[in-house]
């Protein structure tokens, strides 16, 4: 008589992709802070990806991101950031006649038309946060980001801001994280530009708030100490090893 003593490997739970682990962890942290999850399209029109975000046509600011345009579809791009979800969310919000405060988090795939290397891919995940209210300040931005990274990577992390420029925020900053004794550039953020609020039908004299959009691959790489981000998209199960 044969009797299987060893557990059948095929009934063991499968493995989750490390990026999904990072995404789910991140989203959970923001949900606990009262953020609402939103999603948006990857193939986007220029209004939501650029115009509404105060990135004017025929202006050098558009060159800041290497954009994929779509053949035969004028006015369509692969989104260069998840900031399009900000616009879509706020437009809908204002259309329904609702009033701030609100806070939204959105994770999604973005695209940049640039050469790939160990730290850059043509496709990548961004986590976009947006919080608008009557007195949501830049100190709140620092508080929320600091809280997020401490939850994600442990209490022994430090955050610092440096001046930068994005057409959709003012002031704009880049932020670095001190983790295991090293400062690492994490992403961009700032106070939502009044024009962006107005473009979505939100009164910028009354409401203000912040937005941020760091990439998630960077977070995954430092969390799990990975040498190269490219294998993440090779469909290789050796990558999903946890």
């Amino acid at each position, binding site marked *: 008589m044969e*009797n299987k003593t060893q557990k059948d490997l*095929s009934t063991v739970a499968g493995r989750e992709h490390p990026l999904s682990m990072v995404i789910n962890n991140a989203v959970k942290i923001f949900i606990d802070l009262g953020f*609402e999850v939103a999603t948006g399209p990857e193939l986007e029109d220029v209004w939501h990806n650029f115009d509404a975000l105060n990135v004017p046509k025929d*202006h050098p600011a558009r060159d800041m991101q290497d954009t994929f345009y779509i*053949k035969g579809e004028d006015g369509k791009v692969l989104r260069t950031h998840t900031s399009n979800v900000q616009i879509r969310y706020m437009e809908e919000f204002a259309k329904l006649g609702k009033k701030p405060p609100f806070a939204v988090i959105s994770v999604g795939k973005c695209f940049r038309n640039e050469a790939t290397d160990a730290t850059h891919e043509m496709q990548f995940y961004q986590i976009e946060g947006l919080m608008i209210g009557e007195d949501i300040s830049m100190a709140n931005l620092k508080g929320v980001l600091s809280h997020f990274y401490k939850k994600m990577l442990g209490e022994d992390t430090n955050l610092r801001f440096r001046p930068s420029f994005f057409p959709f925020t003012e002031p704009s900053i880049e932020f670095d994280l001190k983790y295991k004794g090293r400062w690492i550039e994490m992403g961009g953020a700032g*106070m939502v530009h009044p024009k962006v609020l107005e473009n979505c039908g939100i009164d910028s004299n009354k409401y203000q708030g912040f937005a941020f959009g760091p990439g998630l691959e960077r977070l995954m790489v430092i969390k799990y100490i990975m040498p190269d981000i490219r294998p993440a*998209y090779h469909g290789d*199960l050796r*990558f999903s090893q946890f």
Partner: protein
Amino acid sequence: MKISYSWLQNYFEEKLPDPEKISEGIIFHSFEVESLDNLETFGKEKEDWVFDIKILPDRAHDCLSHWGIAKEISVIFDLKIKDQKYEIFKPKSTNLKIEIQDEKCFRYMGRIVKKVNVGASPNWLKEKLQAIGQKSINNVVDAANFVMFDLGQPIHCFDLDKLASEKIIVRNGKTGEKLTTLDKKDISLDESILVIADGSTCSPQANEVLAIAGIKGGTKAEVDFNTKNIIIEVANFDATSTRKTAKKIGILTDAVKRYENEISPELCEKAMNAITDLIFELSEGEIEDVVDVYPKKALQKEISISIDYINKRLGTSFKEEEIEKVWQKLNFEFAKDNYLFKIKVPHLRIDITGPHDLTEEVIRVLGYDRLEEKLPEIRLDTKINETFAKMFWARNKLINDGYSEVMTYSFTDTGEVEVLASASDKKFLRNNLSDGLKESLRLNQLNAPLLEMNEIKIFEIGTVFLMGKEEIHVAYNDKKNIIEVSLNDFCKDMSSEPSLELRNYNLETKFIPWSIYPFISRDVSVWVPEKDNGEELKKLLKEEATDLLIRDPYIFDSFTKNGKTSYAFRLVFQSYERTLTDDEINIIMAKISHKIKQNSRWELR
């Protein structure tokens, strides 16, 4: 932009802080410094450092210049900029005529200098230009370049004697007209291209094009070593049309970089003074009066801002005196009216359009380290987005059913939606997940021994692009077949109130990179007494298999029969440094067999 440390020093009486200190100050108050290099090209005593500073479009109006950076340093380190004196000469009257025929030219200042001595530039000028990667041409051209990198205003010089008269016109080009640029490129012109042309009407050279406005000069009136008389052009052109033309004709010059970002027409005057002084100093000559055509003077913006506004937006409690100090450092004229500041924005600061911009000035000057970390106090009702919940649910369901998640590229060789000008050869967006998953299945089946999986079960959740729409799909394999459905169909049975309960993650997990060399896998099957749990055997295998064993031996099959249990172990060998040979693994396996045979309770199958 490349900025020379010794060039910056010219702006200050006081000795500047060390280059590293300057760099740090700029990084935390102004711009990203991409590199700082020591230059010893000119010998130890003339040592210089070069910063490569990333000037983004908001400050390209006023900071693509040494002067701009010097002003930042003055603010950051509280250093006073030296007063500058101009007009070291007495100008003569002029016959120069300038006519602007199109409103894309906002200002045109011209000046004739006669009897110049065109020659080599002095060493100090050559060195300054060389430090920032510019070639020296002759003293007149170098002077124009120097002033552009110094003040941010493009300047062009024409050989007056190559014009038919002392008249310049700024007009639109005509289809059929051509120009050969200074670097010998032939450009076909048309009505959308603004040009600088010879203003004479009744000579063979009548109306000939001398330069493409704001972009590049032509060979027609090129300044060379035989040049005696020149016209200096200091002008201002429309940003958008300059940018469009430059893109269209494929010429990107340092002048274009400045014009396309928009610079103030008010800058022309200072630049004209500076270039005239420098040309007079380098090549002497008889200087004539400036002709300045400036149809619509730029207005100076006035912005009101309250201390409350600043503190509310930043979440700070800065006092009036501290904020006042910021305006003083920035050299902003202001008036106070109760708690309101009325700021006169300097012309060059085109980026400042409202109180939100002034707020940024306050915090970057005072330092972002002055911001505290404050969690917002508002409480909101969390709502979970349906799409996200579905993806979460689908992923968990598949994982619980033994499927592992993979991700593949959105770009492929074929599809319905094509991207333009891709940096990669994969120009299409995927219209299914199945193709990528099939590849993934093939790869993972080859690697199965490394993965401790008897059967490869994988899935992907992702967006596919169809003509006119995008859709999120779920794909997974059933043996060799790939099943692909839309996320909505996959989630038919999902409850209406999804939870986002996370799986338990080990936060201390560390990723283990894999070897790029092929692995070799070998199986060993052994009969052991029924009570034997196989641990001893596993220990022996691990010891004897040497450190070429890439992972612990694992049981892939076992069964019990007639009081004996059969264990089938898989051993996977791989090196991080080289390709292993069958021979060396055979030797290891022979040793293992020998050891197993020495144990009387065990029997090799």
